[in-house]
């Protein structure tokens, strides 16, 4: 992997998870984003199919069932802790 190449935002899959790293100037390989670190290791399609068979939520985090009150509490905590540009970036 070309580890020295800094993510430019074009041609590579956008990653909200990695945005804070980019903002700090951390170099992340565009190849890694194109392929996806997980995609390189795990067959995600197979995993999705197996999860569906067990009636489990899919890997898209927005599908994960979280109690509304719990989510409200988590958001409030992160907002209170001067984290709108920090913790909140990662609560999806």
């Amino acid at each position, binding site marked *: *992997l070309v*580890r020295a190449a800094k993510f430019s935002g074009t041609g590579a899959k956008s990653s909200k*998870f*990695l945005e*804070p*790293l980019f903002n*700090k100037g*951390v170099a*992340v*390989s565009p190849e*890694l984003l194109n392929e996806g*670190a997980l995609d*390189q*290791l*795990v*067959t995600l399609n197979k*995993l999705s199919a*197996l*999860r569906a068979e*067990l009636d*489990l939520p899919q*890997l898209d985090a927005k599908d994960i069932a*979280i*109690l509304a*009150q*719990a989510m*409200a*509490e*988590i958001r*409030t*905590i*992160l907002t*209170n*802790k*001067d*984290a709108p540009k*920090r*913790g909140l*970036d*990662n609560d999806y």
Partner: protein
Amino acid sequence: MTTDTLILTPSKLPQRLYLFKSCVAGTFYPGIERSFRFILNSLNVDYFDDPNQSSCTGFGVHCGVVPPEANLSLNARNLALAYNSGYTNVVCTCPTSYANLKECINELQNENTRAAINDVLKAVKYEYKGGVTVYHAAEVLYAMKESLIKGARLSLSGLKIATHHGCHYTKVFYEEVIRGLWEYPTLLDDICSGFSGTLVDYSERSLCCGMGFSHFVRSSDYTGSIGLLKLESILAEEPDVIVTMCGACQTVLDHLQKRFKKKLERVAPVLNISQLVAILLGANITKDACVQFAAIDVLPLLKKINVV
């Protein structure tokens, strides 16, 4: 409130456990937590499966994308949830959650830190008061060892087992490893030997699986090179199964064998200790242990222990 701290010796069943779910385990190997629940239910252990618990954010912390304040605030809420529920023995299925929660408890012992974090929690009407103890699920399995062996329908007799304990259990709170030493932990070995398994030693026993969180995100070839070194060392001993206590280690050791199949002379299935014990107790292999999620086929192992 008084706290009923667990006695982690195989003498009495632990009670009033707060089951702390793991993001990584729940995503890649849902059988880990299903198996642990199966075991607790089998022995009528009283536990609380709290739907209000949030992620410990350990993965994000180790990748440098979740700041310590956010981590500490969210885990102060998690620990307050456990305290308020009366189930003050928090049991993590993930070593990263285990170490992260313990680190948060240590941080929150500082009066200034605790006051600052409690100021944040005020907005959601929580207060962190302490009084919570954190364990790993494997420690609880060890504590229940005698009852588990008594209730087992199957054994590991004749099987060669290699264990990998996970760095976030052995190398963060290294003085609190309950069996063996941090450089040579034997917690998983001591559980497996109770079911008549034969433990094998290997040269890279203390080596990380390669996950490293930030390494995995930034440079998966680094993960691959470390993981391959580890796997070559394990597989040279020809184990029938590799037993872990960590969903992330399991993901790496299992899926890397598939990725490096051409480089490896042989492979071995990887199971979490909860999955293995649940199978020995008679759990359903697909609905409880969810072995179908494994990258390396578990069927040969299941045949050897007469499950199928």
